[in-house]
């Protein structure tokens, strides 16, 4: 009897933290979003190689895990810049000059929304509402919320992230 072989080796998990994270969530498939969040917090992104590992732990197909990881705006299969600036593009911020703010940041960083600067320092992302609509326009820099953003408030922030 010949040994069973597979084309892709799922057993090699390397030093991915994915199995431990899945175990922490009881290997429950309904916790997939939480697992991807935790993994991204730890690694910085969701490495494509981890998808098969997660699928195996949760008894899902790789397609299902890939489908979830790519459906949600939060998850990134590729690393982001060292800093992430999220600019709110929603209506309340638009009414307070959000479009101009976005243009200002894009010009300063020389990168469009969704892109990362060539030196890998800053990723610029769109977000649709941070719930700071009464102190608009609002942005989020590395998880920190900032409201009433204007050119004066923006300057030191941009200087810091591009340092």
């Amino acid at each position, binding site marked *: 009897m010949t040994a069973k072989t597979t084309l892709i080796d799922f057993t090699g998990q390397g030093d991915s933290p994915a199995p431990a994270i899945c175990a922490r969530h009881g290997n*429950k498939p*309904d916790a997939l*979003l939480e697992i991807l969040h935790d993994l991204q917090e730890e690694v910085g992104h969701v490495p494509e190689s981890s998808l098969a590992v997660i699928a195996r732990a949760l008894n899902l197909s790789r397609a299902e895990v890939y489908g979830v990881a790519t459906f949600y705006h939060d998850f990134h299969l590729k690393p982001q810049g060292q800093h992430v600036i999220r600019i709110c593009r929603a209506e*309340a911020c638009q009414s307070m000059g959000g479009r101009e703010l976005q243009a200002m940041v894009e010009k300063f960083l020389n990168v469009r929304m969704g892109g990362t600067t060539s030196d890998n320092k800053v990723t610029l992302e769109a*977000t*649709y*509402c941070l719930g700071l609509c009464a102190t608009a326009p609002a942005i989020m820099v590395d998880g920190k*919320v900032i*409201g*009433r953003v204007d050119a004066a408030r923006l300057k030191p922030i941009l200087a810091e992230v591009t340092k």
Partner: protein
Amino acid sequence: MIRLFLTRDSAALAVGADDVAEAIAAEAKARNLALSISRTSSRGLFWLEPFVEVETPAGRVGYGPVSVADVKALFDAGFENGGAHPLSQGRTEEIPYLKNQERLTFARAGLTEPLSVEQYQAHGGFAGLKKALSLSGQEIVKEVTDSGLRGRGGAGFPAGIKWKTVHDAVADQKYVCCNADEGDSGTFADRMVMEGDPLMLIEGMTIAGIASGATRGFIYIRSEYPHAIETMKAAIAAAVAANFLGPNIQGTDKSFTLEVRRGAGAYICGEETAMLESLEGKRGMVRAKPPIPALEGLFGKPTIINNVLTFAAVPFILANGSKAYADHGMGRSRGTLPFQLAGNIMRGGLVEKAFGVTLGQLVNDFGGGTHSGLAVRAIQVGGPLGAYVPASQLDMPMDYETFAAAGAMVGHGGIVVFDESVDMAAQARFAMEFCAVESCGKCTPCRIGSTRGMEVIDRIVADQDRARNITLLEDLCQTMTDGSLCAMGGLTPMPVMSALKHFPEHFKRTKRLAAE
């Protein structure tokens, strides 16, 4: 000992509340003054944030908006004793913005620390739950039904009917799910509840569990709200420790457990069936209805799904009786709605009023008009899927039926003001663009219609075959309204068509969109 109060609401943090707190503590130390700073929920007077309150014999006196640079001068003015200063707003309770509200749900706003079970109870907390523990499920459902409470997430479906359906369903497991995916621009009341008074949400959901026989609950919170997620988790632990949550609540045979789940940046997961899919760890794809979630919801089991504000209204109703709640409001819109004044407005913040208050009273009397000082041109009510209401309709009362009759919606009570510099064609285009970005893709009218919608608007604005393209846009919007699976595609035409109807002249300019 000087007692100061400063909120930890993220809207205040976003404008430097932590820095102000630090500066005050440092200045007090330098002056050898004993001082405590209590980090409470927010009063909702966001234009005054960071808003520092000091306890005086006459009550709390407020100062705002305070910046770090103001701190020395405040001490020089003796603000710790309520001294006069240009930033003084006088006694907080007497600020007209606050005084003229009818706060039933937000009665504790600004008064208590979010995680203190003791302070929560001292201000009426858990009275509703205690009452509920003495009632049968049916009796609780009746109270909620009699209060006239309707779903605050936007659809306005009577909460009592939903609860009754789940109560009457027979199943081995039922669930209570809170939709805290507050993605609508211009809304932040859910966030304020979760960051400021999380125990109220826990109490409301626990009552729902007792009423329906559900023993497990989930709160689905959007990832854009990191502070709300953190506070909610801590509040759950505090409630469990105080035996208001978990097994055998307050020594009874009732048990209820709660878990927080994070969203991942998908607007569509605010749609209840997409949220269920997401809670099950799947892509946030909308489900066809029927079956309704009340019968086949989370994991196929009967599930109560309500918005944060719906659950948050329940403790008051149980504690004070359905009549006390239903006495507020107009027509079939009973009770109060925490309106959220946002965007280009002088005094942005939270205004809880009974239904029936007019849009103009909210925007002008409370809000003080635009922030820019220019005239009000349009007000988007009810989030990105809500209509743009022209300034000529400011006398409309806030009421589900009145707004529906005018081709608009109250939604979650978000009110976003635009001044006359706004380009309404660009806003209409954005509505389509937003739908294209956030569509789950399950049904064609939403997935493809939104992209086609952008293109048609571009052609209208560029004056290509104008009349025919306007007809095409109207036809497309009708198709999206009638043929979409959920409100995402079904309501996107609302902002588009309201912009076209009320501001047709904006669709004639050629410059701006070509440049984008």
